[in-house]
Structures are given as C-alpha cells and as structure tokens.
C-alpha cells in the first residue's frame, strides 16, 4: 500500500471518529425532538454547561464566585480541594435533572401548543441564557477537563500500520487519538443503554407513546410534563457525555457550544426522529468533511470544514427533504 492510500484511510478513520462525536450531540436533539416536537437549539450549550459544571465540582469552585466577589468585595474562589470524579459526575447529573425540571416549569409549560418554529426560537433564547449563566457561575476562562480517559496517539496502532506500507516508501504510521477510540466505545454503550431503556422499561414505552401521539398518550394517563422532564434530563445526561468528550479533547470553552451547530446538518441527513439516523448522519458528515478537506481543501485555501456539512445538508435537502430515515411526508388538507 502506498502512503497516499494509507493517508486516505487515516483520514477516513479520523472522520468516522469525529462523526461519532457529532452523533453524540445529535442524539440529544433527536431524543427531545421525538418526545416533544421541540427542536432544542440549546443542546450544544447544555453540553458546555454540563462540562463547566463538572469541572467546577472537580476543582471545588464556588459557583457565582465572580459575581459574589464583585458584589461584596470578597475574595472567594474555591471551597476546597475538589472532589472525586465519580461524585462530581453524579452531582452534575443531578444539576442537569434540576435544570430539566426548571426548563419544563418555567418555559415549556407555558409554550404548549405553540408552533414548532416559535419553540425553536425560544430554545435559541434558552441557549443564550445558559451560556451567560454557565460563564457567570464558573467563569469564562478556558478549563481543562480530565476524568481519566486516556488520550494522545496510540503507539501500538502506529507500529501496526507502519508495516502496511509497500517497500521503498517512508511512512510513519497512522495517528489515532485514544480519546476518540474511547469516545466511540462510550457512544456505542450509550446508544445501547438508551435503546434498551426505551424498549424494555415502562418509562421507555411511555416515551415512545408520547413521541407517537401526544394527545393519545395523555388519554391513557401518561403525564406529558413528567415525560418532558425525563426526556430533558436524559438529553442533559447525553449532553454531559458529549461535554466530557469534547471538553477532554479541546478544553472546556465557549466554542464547545458551537458543536451544536455541527450537529444540525447531521440531523438533516439522518432525519430528526431517528436515532440510527443521527449516528449514520454523524458518520457521513464526519468522513465527508475530513475527506473533502483532505482532497479539495488544499485547492481552495482550506478551512472547508466550516461549511462543508451545511452545504452537503443543503443539497441533500433538495432531493430528500425528510432525511435518510425519516418517513415520506404526505400533506393533507
């Protein structure tokens, strides 16, 4: 095999794993959309917020310390040395559940029967609010997040792939970040758990019922509001997982919330209501944008990753508006 060919494989592999990361965010969108018909733009900011909170707990930050210091002239920053990873994660989950409950109580409850597009715009408002809140609680500086997931290149894989090259070429082996490998594993685990949950538990059945038909679900005694809190909690946990992965990879910072924007074309490709769609859509976008950047990027000045996913989604929409796995829409009057 020539080095060029091996490079292409490396690009595809990295694309696949980047795709998994996109899928993780897209998954949160799909969950909320299926259960409530809300397109939750704030999903990306939820990931940022969850990651910020996790770091805050880990390092023992006092929430709102900047604001408190400003108001009362105090100098508090930390309440202690921080806490163990597991406890911090559990506490963050609690925070995300409380957050879900508050969103339902303060926003969603008042917006029943609004048009989807109004709800969408409301979640943009929610995203702004949470972004401000997260920064105000934990500070806007870039933080490193480490929950013990190995990272860095895999030497073993480099050694293995180095032997694949044909005689007479210089080749240093493929680079694969261990973090990406673990992220893939965790994503697979998460999807499995979610699938089992929705197939084999009572709550899961209720969730699917609500996704199918709100009114019918109400008539058989399912509480829509409880379901919404549950769904937003699950989406919050998914956001936490995504936040941990992206945060470990590139630090916890404002740009983390922008991954939400990357997840949108993933959804368009996969359809808004399909979990397998979100995963495959993520993989297609991941591989597509890496390959495009690898092949076409150098010819047009690079940085095509900024827009490739959207333009791909745009073309896709022209031909299959319902997404890869969405159902064909028959309009009725």
């Amino acid at each position, binding site marked *: 095999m020539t080095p060029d060919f091996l490079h292409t494989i490396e690009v595809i592999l990295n694309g696949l794993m980047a795709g998994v990361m996109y899928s993780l965010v897209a998954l949160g969108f799909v969950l909320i959309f299926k259960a409530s018909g809300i*397109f939750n733009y704030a999903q990306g900011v939820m990931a940022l917020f969850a990651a910020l909170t996790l770091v805050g707990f880990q390092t023992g930050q006092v929430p709102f310390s*900047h*604001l408190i210091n*400003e108001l009362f002239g105090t100098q508090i920053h930390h309440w202690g040395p921080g806490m163990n990873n597991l406890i911090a994660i559990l506490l963050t989950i609690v925070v995300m559940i409380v957050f879900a409950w508050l969103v339902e109580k303060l*926003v969603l409850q*008042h*917006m029943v029967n*609004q048009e*989807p*597009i*109004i709800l*969408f*715009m*409301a979640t*943009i*408002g*929610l*995203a*702004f*609010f*949470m*972004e*401000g*809140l997260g*920064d*105000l609680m934990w500070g*806007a500086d870039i933080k490193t997040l480490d929950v013990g997931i190995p990272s860095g290149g895999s030497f073993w894989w480099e050694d293995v792939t180095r032997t694949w090259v044909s005689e007479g070429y210089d080749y240093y082996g493929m680079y694969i970040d261990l973090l990406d490998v673990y992220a893939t594993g965790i994503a697979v685990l998460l999807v499995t758990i979610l699938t089992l949950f929705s197939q084999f538990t009572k709550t899961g059945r209720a969730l699917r019922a609500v996704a199918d038909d709100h009114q019918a679900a109400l008539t058989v005694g399912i509480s829509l509001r409880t379901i919404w809190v549950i769904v937003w909690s699950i989406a919050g946990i998914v956001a936490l997982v995504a936040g941990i992965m992206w945060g470990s990879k590139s630090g916890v910072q404002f740009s983390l919330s922008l991954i939400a*924007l990357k997840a*949108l*074309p993933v*959804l*368009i490709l996969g359809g808004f209501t399909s979990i397998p769609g979100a995963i495959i859509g993520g993989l297609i976008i991941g591989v597509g944008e890496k390959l495009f950047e690898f092949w076409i990027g150098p010819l*047009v*000045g*690079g*940085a*095509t990753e*900024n*827009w490739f996913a*959207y*333009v791909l*989604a*745009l073309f896709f*929409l*022209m031909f299959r*508006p319902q997404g890869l796995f969405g159902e064909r829409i028959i*309009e009725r*009057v």
Partner: protein
Amino acid sequence: MFYRESGDFKTSYIQDQQIFPILQDRVFVIAVIAFAFLVVPFLINDYWEKSVLLPVLIWSLAAIGLNILTGYCGQVSLGTGGFMAVGAYASYKFTTAFPELNMFIIVLLSGGVTAMVGVLFGLPSLRIKGFYLAVATLASQFFLIWLFNKVPWFYNYSASGQINAPERFVAGIAVTGPNAPPWATYLFCLILVVVLALIAKNLTRGRFGRSWMAIRDMDIAAEIIGVAPLKAKLSAFSISSFYIGIAGALFFLVYLGAVEPTEAFGIDKSFLVLFMIIIGGLGSILGSFIGAAFMFLMPVLIKNILVNGLGWSTDIVAHLIFMIVGGLIMFFLIVEPHGLAQLWRVTKEKLRLWPFPH
C-alpha cells in the same frame, strides 16, 4: 382622552388604507421624521453618531429585511450575517472599481447583488420548511463568510485580508472614510432608511405582502387560492436580502469603515437581528425599528450603568447581558409573540378609551 379615533371618520377607502389611520399617530410620526431631518443634524456629535444613531438606523434596516422574510413570509433565516457580508463586499468592490459612481447608487447596487445571492440560497425553501430551512440557511452564513475570507479577489488582494472603506462624497461632502462629518453620515443613512422603510410598508400592505402572509399562515391554502409558492417565497427572499445587503453595505462603508468578515458578520449577527424582530414584533415594520433600538441600546445602557456606574468588571456584565437577552427572548415568545409593537398597539387601544375603560 385626547388620543382617540371617534369623530375621525373615514369616508373613502383611500383614507381607510392609510399607514397611520389615526390623526394623532400621523401628526406624531411626521413630527418625529421632521425632527430627525431638521433638528438632529444640528445637534449630532461623534458620540451620538457612532454609538447610537448610525447603528440603530442600520440595524433597523437589517431588521426590516429579516422581518419581511421571517415575520411576513414565515421563513426563518439564520443567514443574515452572511447576507450583510455580501452587501458589504459588493459595496467595497463597487466603490473601488467605480470611484465616480454616486454613493446612493452603489449602496442600492450592493443590495441588488445581495438580492440575487438571497434568491440562490432561498431556493431550498421551495422544498423545505420551518427549522429545516433555518438550518439550511446556516449554509449561506458559513459558506459566504468562508468565501470572503479565502478568495483574495473580494478584498482586492490586500495583505491584511480586511476591506477598508475609501473616502467617497455625496454632493461634495464626505459620507465615508474617517473625515466624514457626523451629520453627513447620519443624513445619508437616514434618507435611505426612511425611504426604504416606506417602500417596505407599501409592499407589505399590498398584494405582495398578502401573498407572503398567506404563505406564512397556511401555505397550502395560499397555493390553492392562486399564490405561486415559488414566486412568493423567492420574492420575499430577494427583497429581504436587498434590505439586508444595504444594511451590510452601510454597516461597512459608513459605520465600521474597516471590516474583517468573521468578526463583523458572524453567526452572532444573524441571531442578533432575529432577536430584534422577535422582541420588536414579527410582521411589523414599526416593530423592526423598536426591536433594533431595544436590542442595540439595552446592552449599552446596562453596560453604562453597571460598568461605568457601579464599577463592575466588563466580563461579568457581558455574561449578565447574555442571560438577560436569552431570558427576554423566552419571555416575549411566551407572553407576547408579536413583540413590543403589539404591546404598543394594546396600550393605544387602552389609551383611546381612557379615562372610561368600558
């Protein structure tokens, strides 16, 4: 008590179709416009020009543009920043290629170029709706900004990759560049904004406006009545982009003077304009002005109070502003989806009856 329409009878359809059917409103609006043209230019200074009047005027124009598309035609767009960039770069290319061309014509041409780009990116709206379309418009946002960053022709191969507004004159007085007097830039923008707002009002109250609203409210019924979706949607996209393009051109030529695309026309600008029309009022030209003024001035005011008044640090205030903006958006969508313009209308209804509410 004095604000009422009783006795103000309409005896012809022309009278009934006026933009401001109530006499007091008409007098008030004419007074405001007269004040803006005849008094403000003598009082204006650098601070008022750069910090208040120019940005509010320019953002109002962008808000009118987006309101035509989103408020009237119901097509949500997140590509406003990208379209403003098209207007800005078109005006840059025109001013540098044709230095003698009248500035009003340059600005209108830039709007025209943006309208064409708008139609191109509006094509998917024929197949897709709602937030699918909103996501698709993101493609224009990211692609256009990338294009202006990467293709040197757009910034005339300048080393910095920035574009700078050259000094240009209207009737011998500079309206762009560092030496332009505040009153000149202000009047230049004011003329455009007033005329374009009037045109927008005319369009939205007539046949075109009704076809847009029909598509917004019930697209299937609209089509069965005889509104061609292609024509209605694409005309909304092109006219909306025309306004947004002109806003972008003014933003660059008159207000900023120098522009780096990612900084000046990023996705945050798309959201800003969307928030302006949500808070001001979807489907209201007046609301576009109110929303633009509110969204631009509210953070300035808060900053002035908290940072300059109470001495808080700027980043804390910035975060607070984020929270306030987000909170307000949710609040308005829950309580009054028609925004401040509707609140104003309701107040007027009450005022008419005051002091006898029943």
